[in-house]
């Protein structure tokens, strides 16, 4: 290889590498800048929320999510502020915001996840048929999130959503499938978390929905060995069939607000 050519290549590589390094640095810089901006918006949102200015808080949460769309917690706290306001307009604003975010960031699973939750959050303020439509739309977005990332949270969330559909709609087997997958994923994790009990609770409830209370109890009893202090399991196992049915019928009443606050995911981390 002629020297001058080698030199050109070396110079070229050198130049390419320099540009690449520069771009990487810039990207990192941008990321850091975005992360900083997101964090400061998030903090401003929390501050506004704590002082009772929820509408101001929504502005800041949205800014935080625009900077860091995959941040599940930012999305979660944004939605919880919307739930606190509990006005149709705020739910619609939240849905519209995540809709826009999904068009801008089609491949980010947590954006889809929060989008789905935004629909779930709106259910209690709507009429019975609209509730069905909202719940069904949410399922679609939870599925989208799962397509992008197979996760415990994804399967638990979607499984739990299927679970709220009365058995007549034939979606309970799908709940079982997802909740079993969530359990399998949690069992693979090195550290067991307290919230990993949730799919067990749900799985038992799914079998109750299919009128197999014996199977439900078996699941809860087995889970109680792994989570002996869990109150949800204890409560369900302490009831006779009649009391259990009364309790779960009320629990699954369509239109009742479902707690979609995911802060438990981070609280345990901080402890």
């Amino acid at each position, binding site marked *: 290889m002629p020297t001058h050519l080698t030199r050109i290549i070396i110079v070229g590589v050198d130049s390419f590498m320099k540009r690449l390094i520069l771009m990487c640095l810039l990207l990192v810089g941008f990321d850091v800048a975005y992360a900083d901006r997101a964090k400061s918006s998030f903090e401003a949102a929390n501050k506004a929320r704590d002082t009772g200015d929820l509408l101001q808080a929504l502005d800041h949460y949205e800014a935080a999510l625009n900077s860091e769309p995959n941040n599940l917690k930012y999305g979660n706290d944004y939605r919880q502020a919307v739930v606190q306001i509990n006005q149709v307009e705020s739910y619609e604003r939240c849905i519209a915001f995540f809709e826009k975010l999904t068009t801008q960031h089609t491949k980010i699973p947590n954006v889809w996840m929060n989008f789905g939750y935004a629909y779930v959050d709106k259910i209690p303020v*709507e*009429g*019975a*048929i*609209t509730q*069905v*439509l909202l719940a*069904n739309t949410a399922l679609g977005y939870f599925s989208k999130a799962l397509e992008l990332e197979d996760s415990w949270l994804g399967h638990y969330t979607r499984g739990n959503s299927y679970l709220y559909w*009365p*058995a*007549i*709609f*034939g979606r309970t087997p799908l709940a079982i499938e997802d909740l079993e997958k969530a359990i399998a994923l949690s069992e693979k994790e090195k550290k067991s978390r307290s919230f990993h009990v949730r799919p067990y609770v749900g799985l038992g409830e799914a079998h109750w929905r299919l009128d197999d209370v014996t199977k439900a109890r078996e699941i809860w009893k087995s889970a109680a060995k792994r989570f002996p202090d869990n109150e949800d399991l204890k409560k369900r196992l302490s009831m006779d069939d009649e009391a259990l049915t009364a309790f779960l019928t009320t629990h699954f*009443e*369509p*239109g009742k607000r479902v707690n979609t606050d995911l802060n438990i995911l981070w609280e345990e981390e901080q402890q």
Partner: protein
Amino acid sequence: MIRIIMMGVLASGILYADVVAQSAMKFEEIAEKAGVQFVHSTRKFGDRHKAEVLQMFTDGGAAVAVGDYNADGFDDLFVVDSDEGKPHHLMRNNGDLTFTDVGQELGVSSGNDPLAICADALWFDYNNDGHLDLLIGRFGTPILYRNNGPDKEGAYTFSDVSKKSGLTQFGNTIAVIAFDADRDGWLDLMLGNYFKPENLLDLKTPHVLPNNLDYATNGGGVTFWRNVAMENGRRGFKDITDEAGFIHHTGWTLDLGHGDLNNDGWQDVYIAGDYGTDRMFFNKGDGKATFDEVTETAIGFDTRKGMNVDMGDYNRDGWLDIYVTNITDEYMKECNMLWHNNGDGTFIDLSRETGTCDTDWGWAAKFADFDNDGWEDLFAVNGLRSAEKPNYIPVLLEMIITPNVDFSDVNSYPDIGNMTWSGYQKQRMFHNLADGTFKEVGAEALVDTDLDGRGVGIADFDNDGLLDIYQTNANQQTLLFRGTPINSGNWVGLKLIGKVSNRDAVGARVTINTGSDPLIREVNCGNGYAGQSSMRLHFGLGNDKTIESVEIRWPNGKTETLPHSQLGALVNKMSVIIEGKGVIR
């Protein structure tokens, strides 16, 4: 707020618990024996496009109207059918709990024309001649039969005066009530319309179904007709829907109820709407039959599937409460609404607290004191379509969740075939426990059939002091339940006759004091889905035998207190009171 109200009624209930505990409701079903068992037929749409869907949406029409058309002192029955050519039945009460069908003989059995479906009926004396006239509400133009009274031989005849009376407007009418909105002494008419005014039997557009299943705004709303003197000197009706303040209501009306909800002496209106918000209107009291909509402040905006309106004072606080049925089933838990009247123009739904929330897929429901213990109970019928085992709901769900589906398009809906939809549901009887709650006793009372109930007509058909129930069912046989309660209480039956006020004293309020909480009843004309109950007033007194006072507020606003000397004779009998003259018999 709810707790305070419940504590109040609980405290008063302690006084009455013994009386209530002694009695038990019981009924005997005697429709066949009485000769009033008919199988209703909903309209079939033949080979029309989407015939099954249209039939499914016009599934009402099994209606009953109670009224004493021949003034013999026994309430008669008019039973509506809906399929093409099917006759209605005017069942003359023979006075011994048997009835004779005189519908064809008197010429009032038709109306199910090729392009019209009969859906409701109402007895009301529109011309104040003392003879009850008959209005048939149709998906079409209404039919008004004038009762000509008895001829020389005592035979009654009816004349079709629909056109002459001005009732020529097409509507898909499913509910009819009459009351004197302007206190001019004549009964005005309100028609509740389900679909917008498109003839379903001659469909020009497929977009006739609700445009939203929770907030529909493309229904038939209501029309309101003022009773006026016509050029020929006879009485007729003029459409004043706009002037009266009802023109903006375009919901899917399923039922109407009238009563004095704010105790100002004027008749107010509650409209139960399917696929969305019920509406409440207070009479302005200006004598012009104009109303203010008070929905937002009085009850708020709901998204439920309102089916029935009835009014009664379930807790004896002197204010009319309202019972509305909705849909409560495995797949949809709307809960009924028992609107407790707060006495300040607002109402609070206490159906859960009172135990009257769940009647499955609700239809008609009526307040009445079936055991004469002094407290109004509630009878509610239910069930949409009892057919074969496959369930329509999952099929319907697939349509509902189809992206961008047009709910208003008949083509969007899958055929139902022989599938069941909210079928085989047990009728409910709620016994008022006098403590602000009710206990469901349908099975013990022997009224818990699982037919597809629609309308209810309540009356004391044999004048024995015990209320009976006539129940209509869609595409199934009707039922007549004779009241046979155990340890029933004392009672008072009153037939009011207006002189200055409208002849049947519709809208009159009677307050009876027996030393405890007052009992109030208002004469209503058509409250309750697909049913008109007797216009006579029935009061259970429990163990009380002494009446301290009876006050009548006539529809014209004047109050009359019966002389003390007349009160003793009222207990355990049916009495007639003429405005300004007191008890005449």
